[in-house]
């Protein structure tokens, strides 16, 4: 697990303890759950075939992450170490089921297109990972910031894949035609194989950018 201690190498600008803004921002970029921590690959690969699916999955995961972080953080002093994982999973599963009902009540269509992947948020290691690594050790306020940051970062990453896959694989963006009727869709992009290609390309880009930043910092140090 990438925590602040590991990544906060003794570079000049970062010596004071992480501020609230840092707690929030790190989920978006420096510790991005998908492109840096490579967590929660199941929904990332499976439901990012359209923009709408990506957004709904991202929002559902953010909701579960936020609510379970609050609860885990509230109860962190009373839950004995020995039963913490079981308690965390119970808390997470509760909010996943709640999200499942709410999505059904809001739109049956979206619920049908996401299928089993909503229930599978329970086993998204991003959520248990944040509960274990962050909210079980931090105050409610900080945990909420961390959860929202990670959730937004996760949604952003799903969108990165969803946009590329829907535009190339179906010629549409959120259902609106982009290239007109003469466009021949790249069917592979909609299939699971396409998810791996697109994820690979994004990981390549992110790692290249991180390497370049590191090199620049070394030059200026």
């Amino acid at each position, binding site marked *: 697990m990438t925590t602040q201690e590991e990544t906060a190498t003794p570079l000049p600008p970062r010596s004071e303890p992480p501020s609230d803004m840092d707690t929030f921002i790190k989920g978006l970029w420096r510790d991005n759950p998908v492109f840096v921590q490579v967590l929660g690959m199941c929904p990332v690969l499976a439901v990012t075939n359209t923009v709408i699916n990506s957004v709904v999955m991202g929002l559902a995961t953010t909701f579960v992450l936020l609510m379970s972080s609050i609860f885990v953080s509230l*109860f962190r002093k009373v839950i004995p170490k020995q039963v913490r994982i079981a308690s965390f999973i119970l808390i997470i599963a509760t909010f996943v089921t709640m999200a499942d009902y709410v999505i059904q009540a809001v739109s049956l269509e979206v619920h049908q297109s996401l299928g089993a992947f909503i229930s599978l948020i329970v086993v998204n290691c991003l959520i248990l990972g944040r509960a274990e690594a962050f909210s079980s050790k931090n105050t409610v306020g900080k945990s909420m910031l961390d959860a929202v940051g990670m959730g937004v970062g996760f949604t952003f990453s799903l969108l990165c894949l969803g946009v590329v896959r829907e535009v190339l694989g179906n010629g549409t963006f959120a259902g609106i035609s982009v290239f007109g009727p003469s466009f021949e869709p790249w069917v592979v992009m909609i299939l699971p194989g396409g998810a791996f290609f697109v994820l690979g390309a994004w990981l390549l880009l992110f790692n290249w950018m991180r390497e370049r930043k590191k090199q620049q910092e070394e030059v200026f140090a």
Partner: protein
Amino acid sequence: MADPPKTSFPFPPPEQPSSVKMIAVMGSVGLIASVLLVATFQLTSPQIARNKQAQLEAAVLEVLPGATYFKPFSPTGDGGLAAVSEDDTPDFTFYVGYDSLNANALVGVAIEAQGQGYADVIRILYGYDPACECVVGMKVLESKETPGLGDKIAKDPAFLSNFEALDVKLGPDGETLVNEVVLVKQGTKTEAWQIDAITGATISSQAITDIIWSSTQVLLPLIQTNLTTLQEGS
């Protein structure tokens, strides 16, 4: 960070909390969880039921163009059909559509049918017009077909246009269909009883074809013999 102290060799091991405490904590977490779940279920279940009913009702009027309202009918068991009363829950229901703008004339019958698709069972609703003896509309109610490929059976306009006037005429004996409903390669549809497949989703297209073929064979004779009951049922 409020991390409990790490125990390494020179320190005594941490005290084991009593089982009672662990059980109590797990129990309270479970209790809170169940209260939250019951509350959510209570709040959302009427809306979910309304969504499902609305989806079905919208589908009935969608597959029966021209119908303004519908009434449920069910088989009586002795080869007849009867209107379903309010508190009845029959095993099988026909949704019979009428046109209030045209003297409540019978428009058609919406029939629910299902069959095995590429992934899991596909549930569809199709509209049957007894006057022209054809299928006039089809809607996929539930499917788990591959997103982007097989799920086109629900959205692809070219595929859905197959079901605007699909020929399912009964023969002179009133028992069997004149022409078998068959799937043909995309763009080769020449007859009114053929269905143009979706390229890349042949299995799903075949599944829809089979569902309609097997359902029409059984149910159309029943509808045609009870046509007067349905016409008077408005």
